[in-house]
């Protein structure tokens, strides 16, 4: 029998229990972080591997999103360019434009007269001298046609192209959307690729964390045995390993964000120079706060699940001998 009855007065009552539980978890989380930082080299290695694995899909995602923004800003570009015969005057071209405006297929029809086209050309560097040599305007009048969204699909565009080609005033028809549509399809493909890559590398992260935790369980098997001998519950023994997994995930996610942000900052200058060559501005977008939260939450969950698997597989094997 016990020498003294257990001190019931010291035991936490039911109201204090959640608080005690919470403070125990906070202590456990902090202690685990302290242990990870106590072995900085091993921790940095694991975290870096997770960070690089997660940075790859994140970077591809950033690339895809930026290209999508770029395409979005081109939606205003002419879908179909109608080049009229050169002997069609600007006045006659305006009549054609008026007729086409009656077509339900078009949202907007814009006339670029021969004179206007010549004026625009003169403004472009290098062309002024060349054009000064010419006595007549070599440029035809052009109609820029913007189809309604319902008609901005490849089949309809081809149909329109054929019908427009039959107009007597038309020299030839150029469809500008073709490559845009193809580009859109490539973007969709790359989005799928991001998901696939993310899935693949996420399972990689599970394995990395699982293996790290497995080694840690092996290294501390003596301690685990003693804890079992003195009456530690399975959840008490599991807890520090689960926290370690969550920390690995969180720190890995942070380093992935850091790597991607570093890359975006590094590319900002070259992209701006490239955009300026196209007489355009294109601010490169990095990872937003929502995306950062997604990465951190996802990586933490991955770490937790990875360590959970390792703990359930390997802690059973440690029995006091």
């Amino acid at each position: 029998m016990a020498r003294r009855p257990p001190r019931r007065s010291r035991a936490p009552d039911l109201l204090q229990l959640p608080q005690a539980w919470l403070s125990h978890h906070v202590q456990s989380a902090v202690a685990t972080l302290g242990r990870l930082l106590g072995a900085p080299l091993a921790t940095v290695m694991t975290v870096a591997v997770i960070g690089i694995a997660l940075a790859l899909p994140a970077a591809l995602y950033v690339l895809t999103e930026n290209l999508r923004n770029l395409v979005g800003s081109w939606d205003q570009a002419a879908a179909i360019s109608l080049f009229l015969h050169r002997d069609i005057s600007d006045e006659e071209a305006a009549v054609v434009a008026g007729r086409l405006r009656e077509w339900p297929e078009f949202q907007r029809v814009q006339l670029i007269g021969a004179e206007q086209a010549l004026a625009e050309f003169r403004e472009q560097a290098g062309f002024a001298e060349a054009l000064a040599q010419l006595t007549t305007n070599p440029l035809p009048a052009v109609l820029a046609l913007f189809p309604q969204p319902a008609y901005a699909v490849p089949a309809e565009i081809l149909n329109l192209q054929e019908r427009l080609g039959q107009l007597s005033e038309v020299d030839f028809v150029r469809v500008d959307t073709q490559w845009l549509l193809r580009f859109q399809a490539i973007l969709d493909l790359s989005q799928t690729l991001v998901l696939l890559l993310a899935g693949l590398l996420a399972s990689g992260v599970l394995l990395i964390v699982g293996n790290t935790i497995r080694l840690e369980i092996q290294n501390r098997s003596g301690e685990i045995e003693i804890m079992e001998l003195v009456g530690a519950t399975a959840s008490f023994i599991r807890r520090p390993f689960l926290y370690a997994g969550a920390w690995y995930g969180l720190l890995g996610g942070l380093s992935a964000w850091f790597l991607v942000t570093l890359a975006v900052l590094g590319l900002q200058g070259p992209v701006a120079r490239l955009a300026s060559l196209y007489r355009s501005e294109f601010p490169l977008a990095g990872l937003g706060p929502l995306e950062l939260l997604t990465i951190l939450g996802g990586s933490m969950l991955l770490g937790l699940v990875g360590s959970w698997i390792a703990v359930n597989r390997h802690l059973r094997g440690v029995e006091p001998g």
Partner: protein
Amino acid sequence: MIRFDHVWKRYPERGDALSDVSFELQAGEMVFLTGHSGAGKSTLLRLIGLLERPSRGQVIVNGRNLATLARGRIPYHRRQVGMIFQDHRLLPDRSVFENVALPLVVTGLGPKEVGRRVRAALDQVGLLKRERALPVALSGGEQQRVGIARAVVARPPLVLADEPTGNLDPDLSREIFELFERFHQVGVTLMIATHDLALIHALHHRTFTLSEGRLVNDSGDD
């Protein structure tokens, strides 16, 4: 306190470690368990601490049939049983204080109460001044006393010791047994496996003798 009812323990590779062992131990008793190496002393203690389960028969501790105890309840059973080993089983990278505190920490006790109880236990074994030392800095006798402090710090009603003085000289052994006597005097049930016949005879307690897995002699109390 402890009842063995026709208990058998068979290992596939070694055969029967215990054969048809039955006995009953009252709360507050102090019992020596003796016999040659391999006679089954450790196995008997391991069954009580639920480090193993019997092949046949029933072990009842504190009114609970251990055979029906669910896996998840084992930790709570072990908290009622303080265990002492010949090789101390201390954590080499933890201080004396941390080693002794372990049984309290796993119950979720607050740090102030842990500190108070650990110092009380270290005081009982005369190691209060060594609380910051690592186990390697201690002598064999001191390490064993740390192991004893760890076994009693949570005030379990039952303490098991497996060859606690196996590696100690007679003077240190006597000190350890004096500690056990003191626990006995305050009502702890003790079961001590030992070879040390001289001490057994000097102390006049009930003694179980095991031979080849059988309980061959149960000397009554003096």
